[in-house]
């Protein structure tokens, strides 16, 4: 019942906040969001699951109830946690609480609606990570879109309408493709499955797979579904060439929405890739696509970094660097080694923290200066030492400074990818991807040098002064978590590898 409590508190909290007066909405939402955060931390402390949720592992906080029986298939409420989903749930609850605090300054219109939507997103994000029935999962997955569309569309920047509709159309079309493909797959499995429970479908997939569907052979069907689902999730991740919605959405979104978008929504894509594409499908289906996917991953890393290098808007720089970071995750996943897949999962959490931190820092600077253009700023460290200090710390986290979580994540991925036997030419791909780090360091240092150091110079009518405490505090929490995970990656890496190993062994891999 813990998971139900987690989602229920967020949902009811969303409703209460939506109806609350604007004046108290921000504080109220923060207070409510502390409950799921505390609950998830308690779950983290008492976690007793083992193995992979889809491959017969021991689930923590499992609960299951019959929901709908239609035709030959049962749809059920089926939730549970394993070592992959739990860190992401904790990331979600913590990041939402912090994002709410970071909205207190910038959000000054229709507050109760804003915070209500944020809590509604939280409930659905948690749902995405805990659901183990395809329908349940898909409902949460889709339900994230509507509030995010509204958050960008109502509270966003000047081009918010365009960005919101682009985000909505891209991700929704991708979802439709993925949904159709998966339903075809389940129908193709025929009598082998009687429900939409993911473990059952996984077992049937690894035990021979579908016979075929409407005249399409089993192997062809699996390959087609694999590709369709990969594209569906790739839009969400996003990888090149499906990334174009991301910079628009990130730049136009209000800071807290950017934090959630980069911190958690992107992880939905990589999480789904791991859960569906790389856990369910037998190796021989994946094999022909390994090299193309690795190519896409490396292109995302390099091209994303290059795009970031070309930007002068701080928020765009951070946005494009997310494309680059997500490329690492894909590379780690396709490597199919313990450190590769485990490192990719670790990177999901780590990038969630670091990009959240960066967006918050950029947001705080923007609150004070009302500009994000690197070219406009100079010597910001003079006026906002704390916020800028955190921005620099975040940038170093991005670059992979040892003892910060970014270093651990990238090291795991490179280590895992380099020795991969599954991926041909693995050392070459890894070497190319590592080059991305150089570019990252290049654009981040370049931006820092111009905006942060030197004599203070900024043409603005605003009185640029230190940020208030409640703007800075969430960033310190994030920085603390980043360093904690960098110093002791085993805090979560142990449970991650425990859940990853069965994918590599049990799934005939």
């Amino acid at each position: 019942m813990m998971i139900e409590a987690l989602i229920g508190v967020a949902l009811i909290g969303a409703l209460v906040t939506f109806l609350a007066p604007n004046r108290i909405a921000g504080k109220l939402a923060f207070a409510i969001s502390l409950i799921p955060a505390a609950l998830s931390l308690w779950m983290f402390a008492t976690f007793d699951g083992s193995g992979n949720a889809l491959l017969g592992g021991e689930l923590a906080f499992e609960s299951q109830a019959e929901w709908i029986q239609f035709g030959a298939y049962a749809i059920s409420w089926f939730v549970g946690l394993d070592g992959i989903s739990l860190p992401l749930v904790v990331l979600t609850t913590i990041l939402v609480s912090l994002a709410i605090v970071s909205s207190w300054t910038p959000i000054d219109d229709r507050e109760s609606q804003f915070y209500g939507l944020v809590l509604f997103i939280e409930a659905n994000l948690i749902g995405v990570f805990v659901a183990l029935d395809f329908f349940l999962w898909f409902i949460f997955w889709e339900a994230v879109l509507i509030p995010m569309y509204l958050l960008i569309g109502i509270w966003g920047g000047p081009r918010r309408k365009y960005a919101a509709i682009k985000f909505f159309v891209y991700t929704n079309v991708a979802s439709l493709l993925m949904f159709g493909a998966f339903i075809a797959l389940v129908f193709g499995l025929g009598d082998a499955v009687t429900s939409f429970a993911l473990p059952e479908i996984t077992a049937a997939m690894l035990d021979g797979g579908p016979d075929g569907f409407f005249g399409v052979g089993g192997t062809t069907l699996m390959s087609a579904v694999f590709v369709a689902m990969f594209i569906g999730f790739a839009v969400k991740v996003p990888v090149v060439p499906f990334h174009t919605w991301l910079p628009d959405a990130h730049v136009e979104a209000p800071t807290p929405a950017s934090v959630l978008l980069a911190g958690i929504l992107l992880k939905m894509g990589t999480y789904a890739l791991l859960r569906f594409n790389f856990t369910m499908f037998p190796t021989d289906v994946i094999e022909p696509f390994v090299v193309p996917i690795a190519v896409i991953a490396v292109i995302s890393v390099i091209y994303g970094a290059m795009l970031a290098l070309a930007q002068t808007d701080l928020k765009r720089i951070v946005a494009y660097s997310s494309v680059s970071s997500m490329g690492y995750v894909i590379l780690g996943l396709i490597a199919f080694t313990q450190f590769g897949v485990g490192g990719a999962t670790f990177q999901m959490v780590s990038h969630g923290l670091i990009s959240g931190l960066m967006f918050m820092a950029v947001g705080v600077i923007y609150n004070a200066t009302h500009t994000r253009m690197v070219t406009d700023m100079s010597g910001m460290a003079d006026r906002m030492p704390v916020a800028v200090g955190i921005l620099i710390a975040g940038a170093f986290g991005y670059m992979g400074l040892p003892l910060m979580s970014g270093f651990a994540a990238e090291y795991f991925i490179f280590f895992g990818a380099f020795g991969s036997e599954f991926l041909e030419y693995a050392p070459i791909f890894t070497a190319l991807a590592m080059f991305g780090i150089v570019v990252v360091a290049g654009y981040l240092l370049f931006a820092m040098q111009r905006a942060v150091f030197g004599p203070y110079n900024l043409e603005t009518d605003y009185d640029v002064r230190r940020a208030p405490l409640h703007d800075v505090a969430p960033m310190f929490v994030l920085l603390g978590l980043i360093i904690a995970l960098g110093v002791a990656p085993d805090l979560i890496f142990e449970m991650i590898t425990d859940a990853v190993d069965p994918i590599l062994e049990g799934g005939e891999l």
Partner: protein
Amino acid sequence: MVLVELPEWAALAPMLLLAGTALALFVIDSISPRSTNRTILAGTATAGSLAALAVAVWFTAAGVGAPGMDGFGVIELFDGQLIVDQMALYFMIVVAVVTALVSVASYDYMEGHAYQAEYYSLVMLAATGMATMAAANSLVTIFIALELASLPSYALVSILKDNRGSVEAGLKYFLVGALSSAIFVYGISLVYGATGFLQLDAIAVELEALAAGDGGDFGGLLGLGILMLIGGFAFKTASVPFHFWAPEAYEGAPAPISAFLSSASKAAGFVIAFRVFTTAFPLDVTTELIGVDWTVAFVILAVVTMTVGNFAAATQDNVKRMLAYSSIGHAGYALIGLAGLGAGSETVMGAAMMHLLVYGFMNTGAFLFVGLAEHWGVGRTFEDYNGLAKQAPIACAALAVFMFSLAGIPPFGGFFSKYFLFTGAIEAGLLVVAAALVVNSALSLYYYARLVKAVWIDDPVVERDSLSQPTGLYAAIVFAAVMTVVLLPGFGPVVDTALDAAAVVVA
């Protein structure tokens, strides 16, 4: 253990309650003519429809009309002229729910109107007709019920006598309705001529005898009769080719009446289509006699109707017209229930029944929101709706629920019913229909999301003062929205009921 043995006609209680409420309203009107006591009038109508709803839900839960229940079973009344089975009760629930919502909302919408009592009694009479349609089991009772539902509807559409749009809409609706009634009754006479029976089961028996014998010489006659019957259904359900009255009528009518016609009346049209084609014209026998599989007609109608409705809706600037065309599109979705019967499976018809129930909430709610906007006097186009969420966030949140549910996006009830239609179509082997459903749903998201964008994201064109919060309209809209959401987790019982009901009729 039943303490008091109820007479068999008691099974018609939901319908009788609706009729009784209409009569009670007449009594009130005769005691106090020209009464404008809205509380009593709207209250009576609401109480009556809620009572009908409660009884229908209770009967369904208790298993009235379900085969295999001790002492119940499918109840046939008056030599099979009326029938109470699970499908009849199911559609009585849909009709009663929509009637209750419409009555509550009319409390505010019809404020200041001169003919209050007449309005509510006409609504109740039309609802009685629709409930009778759900139970009608002979072509004659079907026709009578159809007229009982239609005649008050004509008057209701044009009840805003001083409004040109309303009167024009009423006239158009009446002319098309009269024409389609004529076609329908002609179809009945042809079927009667071919078989010699009007009662649906008797027609089926006669057809089997004909098919077993020499086949008769009336195949063409029967086929023509069936085609004309389809025309009658198409009118009532606002499907192609008799759909063109709908945009005019829905736009001109008072918004609660648009909601009433597009939800309850459509559902009632579908129940007679379901019953006539499953009971009277068994697929294999009829195909043998007339040489054509009648599901083909519905496959074509379904695809054309949903495409016409959606493409037309996408080009509208007037919100009410957009909803009217969307309602045509949804008629196309529900037609899949008949198109998919060829595979001999009841699931697809059950899916259509589920869709009509969810539609009863989400579409009624959407039209009632338009009623709320008319009550506020904000105008009719998408642009006029811009920025309404700033003043009325709750109603606009409800509107977002209706729109996304109509588009079939999770997490709302419309997602499940559409998905079940989709799988039903695939199981029936109708890949073209399933593809049309997906493409049309994707297209529909464009214009539904446009309305959400208008109220939530766009800035108002003109500055408005704060908007009033009429109790009745708000209550109805919020209730419809809550039900649209609750139908997602609570879809299990709906699925079971609808599938059971469909299974009895199809078998």
